Every structure is written in C-alpha cells, then in structure tokens.
C-alpha cells in the first residue's frame, strides 16, 4: 500500500492506495474530486492536481491541458497517474460558493417533520416542513456530488455500467450528500433527523436508479425502456438515510427520460386537470417539456446541459444570495443581485438576461461570437481578455470579478439549441400554433427573477408569448405536495401513466434542426 498525502484547502489527509491503482479514481472515490466532466478519460483536464515533490514525468494529456508553467510546478492530471510510490499532492477546491442554506421561518418547537427533496443531475434541493402546520421551515441547495463521476447523465451511466463497485459508489456519494444536507438543516432548526416521519423524492429516472443502486443497463442501451419507473415506498434506514424512520416515497416516472421530477412538477401546477392548451418546460440539465391539450399530454426531453443552473459557466452559481439575477441596459450594463448582496456570480436568470442584452447591443453575431469592440465607451471598457478568453465583465472590485466568457456563450448556445429544437419538434408533431398555447410554464433553478421577455430575445423560445409563468423548482414543489398530501401521490401516479413520451433523437431531422437552432437571430 502506498501513502498519499492529500491537501485540500487547509486540510491535510492521508489515504492508502494500492500500487497500480489510478489516482483519479481513488481520489474521486474518497471524495477529493469535485467534478470531472469526462469521468477520468484524460479529456477535460479538470482532475488536475499538484504533486508537491518529485513529480512524475508529464504525459501527452498533461501537455494538452496544462500550461508549461503548471507542468513545471508539478501539476498533473490525476487520471493519468498510476500509483507506484508514496505521494504528496494538493487538490483544488472548485466548488466555489455554490451551495447554501436558507431559514424560511423561525421556529423552535418542531416535533414531527417532513423532508421534501429534489435530486437533480446537477443540483440537490431539499426543504424541511413542519408536519403539524405544514409550513416550510428551512431549505438547502447543494451540488450533486456524482459530478465527480461525470458531468452529464451519460458519463455517469457509463461509470455505473463499468462495475458493481462503481454502481455502489454513485449511490453512496449522493446519499452521503443528502445526509449532510439533512444534518446541516436539522442542526440549524434544532431537531433530530429521526423526527422526520415522511419523505418524498422527485428526480429523473437515472437519478432514482442511482440513488437506489439499481442496474442502469436499460437506461444506457437502446431502446431505453426501463420498467423501474415507480419504486415502492421504503423506510429511510433501508438505504442508509439519516432520517432513518421516515417513510420514503419516490415520485413515479413516465419513462426513462421523463422522470418523477416532471410528473410531480406537472401535477404541482395542476397540469393534469388543465383544460387549456399548455406548455410546461423544466429548463434543468435535461430540458424536459410537456405539451398539454384537451386532456392529452405529450412529453419529450433534450440534453440542455447545466448552463441554466450556473454550472459550467465560469462565474456561474445557483440562484442564491449574491447571484446576479437580473441584467438590463441603460447607457451601461445594470444589474440586481439576490438579497442585494455584493455580486458573487451569475445565476440562470442572469445568464438569460445578459445574452438578451448582448444580442440587443449587437455584440453577439449570428454564429455566437462575442465582439471585443463596441462604440459605446461604457461597454468597450467591459470587453477584454481574461486568461486568454474573450470576456465581458459585469462587475469588478478588489475582491471579486464576475464576467461572462466566450466559452460560457458556447455552453449557452448548446443549451438554447437543444431546448428550442425540442419545442419546435413538439409543436410541429402536434400541429400547434403558438398563439393557441394559453400558458407557458417555465420551471428550473432560476429563482423568481427571470424576465420572461428575454426567453424569446435570447433565442430559447422560438416565438413571443404573452402568458409565461415562472414557477421555480416544480420537482421540489411536487415532493412537497406529496409529503403533505397522500392523495397527491395517487394523482401523480395516474398522471405518469397518461403521458405520451416521444424520443426526439429518433427524428431524422433532429441534428440539422439542432444546428440551425444554434444560430442567434439578429435584430429581433
């Protein structure tokens, strides 16, 4: 066994690793890696570590992803290192200020509580409810730690398929984060997690499989038809949850790609009773949408990526205190932050706003390229290169800068193309006229600050609409409803069976339309 001394922040730990093991895998298993989008394949460079002494010779991948200075300093990609000697390394904390905890109501005499949870591909959000008064007491947002094994659903599926050990790792990783979330919230409000009697979890089908340690073969391989859609209720201790006495209910999924997060979310809006033609979109990582008309429900999903949740955006963050959530233009870029705190980053609604502003000012061409030149002096001084990337700076002081990079715009572009194509195909298939749609519901981690006109202006919505409602985290709302009201569970189950799901990628024109939809319309 070799001793690896690991420094993260100002904490030093030691782990024992067998000779011949892959360093990234060992570090990821022990929770030292926050995120590795490519899942350890040497493709993303995010697993970089610093070898403090006697660095191993650099590999081709190191040269590809690291600067010469970094290589000189002993930086290496952990995924390219096979352990053969004792090592002393430093790992980097990339989580920034992502998560948070918010007390909603001050209350001290809670005896029985419920826990409602949304497990997103990128973000976990939970809320504790007073069982008697049914009030929401405290909520918390955290990054899904499974990101260490792949940023998107597919890389995580790949990781799970590789071995039983990996499958268990994914399960343990999310459960321990949920337990930490629970412990923090319970401590804050002075209850014990054993006082939680009921729990409801809404999540997409893959997340539920991984939570329960189910094999994911049917999700990974065509025809993508899993029958594990509505797991039975169980008790918290059955899967090692801290709320060990809680009766746990999982919102049922409609299909492999339209999960309990969507079915519960739709029912939280009363969609199943809806007489009017409605479009419900959840702009999370998996961009699911349901089109409802005359008692029929058609759904699809698109891989939007985590841009709207702030992940993979350089200065991105969740919609929490200090997030730039609203941006406009009035002779200069003007913005608001959540809680009016000093800017710490930009959240989903801020991203949509800044894209709309940049397009309006003609700073982004139809291919998505950011111009570094503006005739407006206030704007010109914001345009510069940071770390060799073209950027626009939103805020800057001695402690912090918040800016948007060309790469961020590319990530946004992919997300926008995905969603827009989903909408186009859904309305084309059902021969809908946009003017026939009564209401459009937009769910997702934007907070309540989303300026809906900008959805059209930045190119996400292919048409203007007068009646767009921003509905927040409907997956969580669905969990809250389930945990408070037994009857809601039945409604969600019935609804999940009524949805007609259609697989977008089977459409022969998908790729072409996707590429077309990457283009930014100018002057709208």
């Amino acid at each position: 066994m070799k001793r690896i001394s690991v420094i993260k922040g100002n904490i030093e730990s030691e782990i024992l690793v067998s000779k011949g093991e892959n360093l990234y895998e060992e570090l990821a298993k022990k929770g030292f890696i926050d995120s590795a989008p490519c899942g350890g394949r040497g493709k993303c460079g995010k697993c970089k570590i610093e070898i403090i002494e006697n660095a191993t010779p650099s590999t081709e991948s190191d040269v590809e992803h690291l600067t010469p200075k970094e290589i000189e300093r002993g930086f290496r990609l952990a995924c390219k290192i096979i352990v053969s000697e004792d090592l002393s390394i430093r790992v980097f904390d990339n989580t920034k200020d992502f998560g948070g905890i918010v007390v909603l109501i001050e209350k001290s005499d809670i005896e029985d509580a419920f826990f409602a949870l949304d497990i997103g591909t990128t973000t976990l959000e939970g809320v504790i409810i007073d069982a008697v008064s049914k009030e929401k007491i405290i909520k918390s947002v955290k990054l899904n730690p499974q990101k260490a094994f792949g940023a998107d659903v597919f890389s995580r599926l790949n990781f799970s398929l590789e071995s039983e050990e990996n499958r268990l790792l994914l399960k343990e990783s999310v459960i321990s984060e949920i337990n930490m979330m629970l412990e923090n919230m319970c401590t804050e409000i002075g209850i014990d997690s054993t006082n939680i009697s009921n729990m409801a979890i809404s999540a997409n089908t893959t997340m539920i499989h991984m939570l329960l340690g189910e094999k994911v073969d049917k999700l990974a391989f065509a025809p993508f038809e899993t029958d594990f859609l509505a797991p039975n209720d169980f008790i918290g201790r059955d899967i090692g949850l801290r709320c060990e006495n809680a009766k746990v209910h999982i919102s049922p999924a409609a299909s492999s790609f339209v999960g309990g997060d969507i079915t519960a979310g739709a029912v939280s809006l009363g969609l199943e009773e809806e007489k009017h033609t409605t479009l419900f979109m959840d702009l999370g990582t998996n961009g699911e949408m349901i089109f409802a008309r005359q008692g029929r429900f058609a759904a699809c999903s698109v891989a939007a990526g985590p841009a709207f949740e702030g992940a993979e955006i350089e200065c991105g963050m969740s919609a929490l205190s200090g997030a730039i959530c609203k941006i406009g233009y009035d002779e200069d870029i003007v913005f608001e932050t959540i809680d009016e705190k000093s800017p710490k980053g930009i959240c989903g609604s801020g991203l949509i706003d800044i894209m709309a502003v940049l397009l309006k000012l003609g700073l982004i061409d139809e291919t998505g390229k950011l111009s570094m030149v503006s005739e407006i002096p206030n704007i010109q001084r914001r345009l510069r290169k940071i770390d060799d990337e073209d950027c626009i700076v939103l805020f800057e002081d001695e402690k912090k800068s918040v800016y948007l990079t060309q790469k961020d715009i590319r990530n946004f572009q992919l997300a926008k193309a995905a969603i827009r194509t989903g909408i186009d195909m859904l309305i084309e298939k059902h021969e809908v006229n946009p003017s026939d749609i009564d209401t459009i519901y937009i769910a997702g981690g934007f907070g309540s600050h989303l300026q809906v006109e900008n959805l059209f202006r930045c190119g996400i919505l292919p048409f203007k609409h007068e009646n767009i409602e921003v509905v927040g985290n409907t997956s969580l709302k669905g969990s809250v409803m389930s945990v408070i009201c037994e009857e809601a569970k039945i409604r969600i189950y019935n609804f999940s069976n009524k949805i007609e799901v259609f697989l977008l990628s089977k459409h022969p024109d998908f790729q072409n339309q996707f590429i077309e939809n990457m283009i930014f319309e100018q002057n709208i």
Partner: protein
Amino acid sequence: MFAELSQAVKSGNAGEAKRLTEEFIGNGVEPEEILNNGLITGMMEIGVLFKNNEVYVPEVLIAARAMYAGLDIIKPLLAKKDFKSKGKVAIGTVKGDLHDIGKNLVCMMMEGSGLEVVDLETDVGPDKFIHAVKEEGAQIIAMSALLTTTMPEMKNIIDALEAEGLRDKVKIMIGGAPVTAAYAEQIGADAYTDDAASAANKAIELLS
C-alpha cells in the same frame, strides 16, 4: 482567390459561403478547386482551432453548416464530372446509442477534408460494416463507441472482417469517449484519434 470563401466557412457564414460558391461557379471556376481551396481549407482551419481548444463544438457545427451550404451547390456538379474523392470511409457507432454528435462531427470534418463518408449511423453490427467494404468500396472503417461496455463490439467487428478475408483490404480507426490508443493497439485497429479534426487528418494519412 479563395480566401474570402474559406473565411466564410471558418466564421460560419452560410449565406456568404453560398453566395461566393455560386459566384465562382458562374465565373467558370472548377468545382474541385472551389472544394479544395475554399471549402476544405476553411474547415481544416477550424479543425486546427478545435484541436487546440480555441474554438468549441458550436463553432465547428456552425462552420460545417456553412461548408455544406457551399458543398450542396457543387456536389451535383462534381458527380456529373465523375469526381474522385480522396477516399471512402464507412463510419458508425457500434452499439446501443442513438444520436452522437461526436461521430457526426467526425463525418463533417472528414467530408470537409474531401473524403466521401458513408454514415452507417448507430447500433451498427459487423454485417453493415462488411457490406460497406464489399458493396460500397469503403477503404476505411471508422468505429465509435460511447460506453466502455460496448467497446468489445469493436473487436468483434475486426474479427468478422478478418473472417471474411477483408481485414487487409481496409484500414480501421476507432474513437469515442472511453476509447484509448492502447485499446486500439490491443484489438488490432490501425489508428485511434481523440477528436474529429485529428480523425479526418488520420484518415487522409491512412489512405496515402
């Protein structure tokens, strides 16, 4: 002379690419010249930038869109002239997955470098690849896999080609998220490349 056209492709300006191509045709310029010096040059430049992480997937897709705007005009003209491409590649994803932008990017870069590409799409077994070699004269087989668990299919396909006596008639290249150069060597493939631009370059190299 073709600098404007290759710039139009590179910057993803489909309208300009189309207009310039039509102008060249109208002025009697040979379609192969337009292809090689205008369209392909632009795509190859993007390929280099992509490989160096100076541009990303969206730029490549948008550049390809511009390239196709020009290519669509000259393709029928090339066909009429019995134009010989630089070579023929049959490409497919070996198992299970549906849409793969990676494999499709490789198609675009390969077409953008003057190769003829037969896209066998996804979930492709040995039979389709064998057919591509026997009946369609594919000189290169390019396989992609997205899941570690489907990679062994690549070996099956190579074995099947051997059994048919076709192994020495084609070059085989592999790629995909979990694939590595070591694996290529292990299963007896001729090459591994890790991005679309390198794949196109490698294919040309294998054919020369």
